[in-house]
Structure formats: structure tokens, C-alpha cells
């Protein structure tokens, strides 16, 4: 981007600058010996054109909305349409969660995001012994289509887009959503939304797996295929770096491991006979936003550029939509402190800026009290307002990718991309992401980074305000949201009622059909949909699949 003779002038003045600063440092040393990013990378005191001399504007950055999408996936980004403000919510019963969704929509939320409780995520009905104490705790309990009907009561499914954080049983919950829409008179081809459906990161970091790798990958490709025909506006997967980062990875690992998972899904779908441009446009991604503003912005830009190259060069995609990486962001739960929780509002504001300056398509902002409990209504409103302030008052949405060309941000973008490429190569050498997970390679790398970070905090090399410095004596916080154990009892009663009231012969028939299809190779989705419509429960459907597919055995890595 720069002329040769001008660069050598800069080199000379940089030498001069270094001399002056080093003299200065003899007298007055800097605050620390090493300045490190949020991910622990050393940061130089100054970045100049010399750090980005290899950048060719058209090749490395290009125009927003076109290859390699470094500057964003839409030509005019937020000038056209703001990101979707999508608050992840769900707790207790479908009735309670339905109320929260309606409140969020009234307050200006532009998309729904459903949190399911752990039994639902792992395919157990609320009356299963392993569900004891967990029903309705971290999300809403859904046992059957009945609950789903209540969850979306009065919410027109042709008007909202809905994201569902569901993985191992994603097909079942998607089928329930399609069935609810049908009852509202909305056909599947009008539905917009996302299922997370990303099993690999469950094995790596999040833990709500059910089936072994191979049948899990089949279920995912079945969903890709089914949706490409029946639910064409649906994002069939949200390939997630969020949980990898929460588990303690660095920013580069977040990009590297997530895109390696993405490669595995694309390979599986191609192997199953799908054409890349038939399903790749509906792949979406999900990243974290931590506190190091510039590192995070660089991370999103690097991820976009790298994915575009992978899709074009490795998989021969032709459709530009297959190459453009669209992503949801959530602010980093692990960055929040239980101490002085109001400080978290400021952290979330910085993280919001990072996500927006990095070009996110949708955003969930965490609430200040999430290191303590589920968020209260007041906290959720502040979190949503944080997005609205950034959108309407900060001015950062006025122009596309405003930090492009920054010597620091561009050089960091290059660096993160290069490190991510190395991780992907290593994973390729190990035989791909599923194999690298079985070997424990990815988990170990993340854990090493997590432990290093913890030690930096404990040695005060890393200051966390209110936690290891600037502490105060605090009152115990009150008014935290609590989910009563009666929620579990009520769900159990509802299940008894359901099983007594439905046509159990029809249920059994669809489950027998489903079993046959699971044992064969036909697409499972139409059969899951049939079962769901007879009010077969999530647990019953999943049990059939457990019987045929078996269960995943975790490799325990410290």
C-alpha cells in the first residue's frame, strides 16, 4: 500500500524514535516490562506503515460486501440496517419465558433467542432422574410440542426471527418450531432463525452432547439437506467460537478452532452428497466479545477473511453467500465479575463496541448480574439499552469498518489470521477437528491458555477491577432471579397429563418409524416432524436415537 522510498523514510524515523524512547526509558521505565493483549500476546509500543507494508488493499481488504469480506458482509453495513439486537432469554416454564419474550420485543429487541434448560439440551424429559434439580434453571423446560406452543403463544413466527441454542437434539426442537408455525398458519419456507446445531464445540467446551461423533454429524447434514429444501431462510448451524473462548482460549484459538469445526461440517455435508453452494450460504457463526477492544475487532475481521479464502480455495464455492461469514456475537460471560457487579455494565459496553466495530450481524449483551445468577428484568433492560446507545449515540455506525487502515488493527488482523491458519493446519495434520477433539488436542490447548490466564490474575500481572484490585467491602446482592423447584414438579404433572391425553398408538407408530430411519440412511427430519406432531416427548424421541446411535464418551482432559 506504500511506496518503497517513503517506507525507507519511515524506517529511518522509526530508528530515531526508538533511540529517543530507549533513552527516555532509562530514566523513566514504562509501567510494565511487557504489555499484553487480552489473549496474552505482546503488544509493541508503536505500529507504523512498516507493520502492514505487505497489505495489498484489494486483495487483503477489498470493499465491504465483497470478497474477502474483511471489511464486512454488507456493502453499507449499519447505514442500511442495524444489527439484530437479540437477547438470549429463557427460564422456568414456557409461560414465564413467553412473558419475557414479549417484554423484550416491546423494549425494542429485534429477534428472539431461546435458552433451554439442561435436561432439554441433553434430551431428557423433566421427569427423568438426571433432570432432578435442573428443570427450568438455565433456560426454559420444553418436553413436547405443547410447551413449544405456549412458548410462542401470541408471537407471529412469520414476523420474528428466532435463534435457538440447541445442539444434540436440534432437529427435534426445529421440528417443534415448524409444527407451531404450521398451527399459526405460517409455512416453513417463511421461517427465519437459527439453530446452534454445533456438536463439535459441545465435545470441546460446552458439554451438552448426546450421541457419538459420527451419527451426530449425520444428523447435522440431514438438517442441512432438509432445510435447503423445506426451510430455506433458516440458518442451519451456528458454528460457535463463543464457548471455546469462554472455556479459556485465546482470540486466535477462537478463530482457528471454530473455523476448523466449520471445515469439518462442510466436509461432512459434501461427503453426504450435498453441493457446497446449496448449503454453505446458510452456515452462520457465533463469536465472543471480550474486553480487549482492538484484539476483538481484529479477530472478527480475520475470521471473515480466512473463511472466505477457505470456502473459495479449499471448497471451490462459487456463490458469494457461501464465502461471506455472517456471525452473531455475545459479550463474554467469563469477563464479568461477581464483585461490584455494576462495573460489568462498563465491560459490556466496551465489548458491544468491539462487536459493532467488528461488523457483527446480531448481538446479545450480558447483564451485570450474570456472574451471580440469571439476569433480572432491570439488568436485561440496561444490557439492551447499552446496544441502543452504541447504535444511536456513539456515531460508530455512521461509516463502514471505521478502523480499517489502522496500522495496529490491520497488523493484528494479519497476526490472528496467521495464527488461526497454523491451528487449522495442525488440526488437518491430526486428521480433522473430530479426530483432534477425540485426541484431546483442542481441549488441552484451550486449558493451557485458561490456566495461564488464571495465573496472570493471581500474580496480579493482569488487573481485574474490583476483583484483584480496587476491592471494596460489599453488601450481599439481593433481588437475584431464582427459579423455584416447583417448576420441576409442575413440568412433571404436565407430562403425566400429556401422556394420558394424547393418542399413544400414533406416538408409538411414529417412534417405530423413526427408529427404522435412524438405523438406515434416509433423512431423519420428516420422521422427527411426524413424531413431534403426535406429541411424542423430546425424551421419547431422543431415547429412540440413543438406542440406535449410542452415547458419546467424553475424553477427560485436565
Amino acid at each position, binding site marked *: 500500500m506504500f511506496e518503497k522510498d517513503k517506507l525507507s523514510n519511515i524506517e529511518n524515523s522509526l530508528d530515531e524514535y526508538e533511540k529517543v524512547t530507549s533513552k527516555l526509558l532509562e530514566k523513566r521505565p514504562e509501567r510494565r516490562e511487557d504489555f499484553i493483549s487480552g489473549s496474552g500476546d505482546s503488544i509493541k509500543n508503536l505500529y507504523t506503515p512498516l507493520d502492514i507494508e505487505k497489505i495489498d488493499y484489494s486483495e487483503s481488504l477489498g470493499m465491504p460486501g465483497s470478497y474477502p469480506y474483511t471489511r464486512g458482509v454488507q456493502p453499507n453495513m449499519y447505514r442500511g440496517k442495524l444489527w439484530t439486537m437479540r437477547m438470549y432469554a429463557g427460564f422456568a416454564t414456557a409461560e414465564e419465558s413467553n412473558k419475557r419474550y414479549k417484554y423484550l420485543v416491546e423494549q425494542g429487541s429485534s429477534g428472539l433467542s431461546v435458552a433451554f434448560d439442561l435436561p432439554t439440551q441433553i434430551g431428557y424429559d423433566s421427569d427423568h432422574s438426571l433432570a432432578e434439580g435442573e428443570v427450568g434453571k438455565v433456560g426454559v423446560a420444553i418436553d413436547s410440542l405443547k410447551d413449544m406452543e405456549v412458548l410462542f403463544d401470541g408471537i407471529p413466527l412469520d414476523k420474528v426471527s428466532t435463534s435457538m441454542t440447541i445442539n444434540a437434539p436440534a432437529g427435534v426442537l426445529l421440528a417443534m418450531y415448524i409444527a407451531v408455525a404450521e398451527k399459526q398458519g405460517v409455512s416453513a419456507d417463511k421461517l427465519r432463525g437459527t439453530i446452534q446445531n454445533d456438536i463439535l464445540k459441545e465435545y470441546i467446551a460446552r458439554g451438552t452432547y448426546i450421541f457419538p461423533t459420527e451419527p451426530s454429524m449425520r444428523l447435522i447434514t440431514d438438517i442441512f439437506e432438509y432445510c435447503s429444501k423445506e426451510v430455506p431462510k433458516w440458518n442451519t448451524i451456528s458454528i460457535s467460537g463463543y464457548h471455546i473462548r469462554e472455556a479459556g482460549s485465546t482470540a486466535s484459538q477462537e478463530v482457528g478452532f471454530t473455523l476448523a469445526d466449520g471445515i469439518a461440517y462442510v466436509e461432512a455435508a459434501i461427503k453426504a452428497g450435498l453441493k457446497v453452494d446449496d448449503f454453505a450460504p446458510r452456515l452462520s457463526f457465533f463469536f465472543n466479545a471480550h474486553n480487549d477492544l482492538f484484539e476483538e475487532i481484529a479477530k472478527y475481521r480475520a475470521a471473515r477473511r480466512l473463511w472466505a479464502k477457505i470456502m473459495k480455495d479449499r471448497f471451490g464455492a462459487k456463490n458469494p453467500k457461501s464465502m461471506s461469514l455472517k456471525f452473531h456475537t455475545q459479550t463474554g460471560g467469563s469477563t464479568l465479575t461477581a464483585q461490584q457487579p455494576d462495573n460489568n455494565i462498563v465491560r459490556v459496553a466496551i465489548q458491544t463496541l468491539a462487536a459493532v466495530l467488528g461488523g457483527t450481524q446480531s448481538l446479545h449483551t450480558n447483564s451485570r448480574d450474570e456472574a451471580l445468577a440469571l439476569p433480572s428484568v432491570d439488568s436485561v433492560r440496561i444490557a439492551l439499552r447499552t446496544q441502543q446507545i452504541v447504535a444511536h449515540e456513539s456515531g460508530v455506525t455512521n461509516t463502514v469498518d471505521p478502523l480499517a487502515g489502522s496500522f495496529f488493527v490491520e497488523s493484528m488482523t494479519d497476526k490472528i489470521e496467521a495464527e488461526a491458519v497454523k491451528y487449522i493446519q495442525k488440526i488437518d495434520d491430526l486428521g480433522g477437528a473430530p479426530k483432534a477433539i477425540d485426541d484431546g488436542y483442542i481441549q488441552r490447548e484451550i486449558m493451557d491458555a485458561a*490456566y495461564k490466564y488464571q495465573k496472570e490474575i493471581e500474580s496480579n500481572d493482569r488487573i481485574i477491577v474490583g476483583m484483584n484490585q480496587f476491592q471494596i467491602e460489599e453488601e450481599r446482592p439481593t433481588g437475584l432471579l431464582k427459579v423455584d423447584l416447583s417448576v420441576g414438579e409442575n413440568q412433571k404433572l404436565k407430562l403425566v397429563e400429556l401422556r394420558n391425553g394424547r393418542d399413544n398408538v400414533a406416538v408409538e407408530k411414529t417412534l417405530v418409524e423413526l427408529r427404522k430411519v435412524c438405523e438406515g440412511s434416509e433423512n431423519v427430519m420428516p420422521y422427527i416432524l411426524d413424531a413431534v406432531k403426535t406429541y411424542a416427548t423430546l425424551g421419547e424421541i431422543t431415547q429412540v436415537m440413543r438406542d440406535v446411535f449410542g452415547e458419546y464418551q467424553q475424553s477427560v482432559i485436565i
Partner: protein
Amino acid sequence: MDRPIRVLVSKPGLDGHDRGAKVIARALRDAGMEVIYTGLRQTPEQIVNAAIQEDVDVIATSILSGAHGTLLPKIAELLKEQGAEDILFIGGGVIPDEDIPELIESGVKAIFTPGTPTSETVEFIVNNVRK
């Protein structure tokens, strides 16, 4: 004690967030203890059985799902039933302060909430483990 302190680190319930459990496991190991990590999704019965079988001095559980009020007292109860109350039973995770007294009452010896330095947990174990 003439052998290193043996600790069972465990994740009760369905919660899959094990960064905390693993960080603690490494920190205890670095402090010279022998650490066994059970992995995810352990029932109270599995945890207590493993603790007895492995002859551990400490059970350290991590739970972030909000099910602590059900699962931790159950572990304490099973330890009593098995006559293994001398195993030091501690917990950590996203646990509201107001829930702690009840957990302590049920037999959990200490609860470590977010932001606790690992050194504090190490010190607690060293000072309170059966001698």
C-alpha cells in the same frame, strides 16, 4: 500425613462448564496434591462412590447450573450414609451468597464463588483436610 492429599474434582449434574473445575484441578496438582477429575454429568451417587473407591481426602465439586441446592446436599447426605463424613467436601461455581448458609448447614464445608484465587482453595484444603 505421609502421602499427598488426594482430591476428587467433579462436576455434578448436567452442567457442561468445566473451565473452573479444570483450573482448580491443575492448581491443586501444582500445589502437590493428587487429583482425579471425573469429567462431566456425575450423579451424587457416582461422585460418592468414586470418592470412597479412590480413597480421597477431599471432594471438590463445581456447579454453574443453579442445581446446587438439590445436588450438593444429596452428596453430603450420601457421605453421611456411607460413614465417609471425614472426607472434606467443598464446592464452587455460580452460587448466590444467600444460598450458601443452607449448603453449609447440609454438610458442605466451604463454597468458593467466582473470583476466588485458587491459592485460597489450596489453603483451605491444607488447613481443613483430615490429619
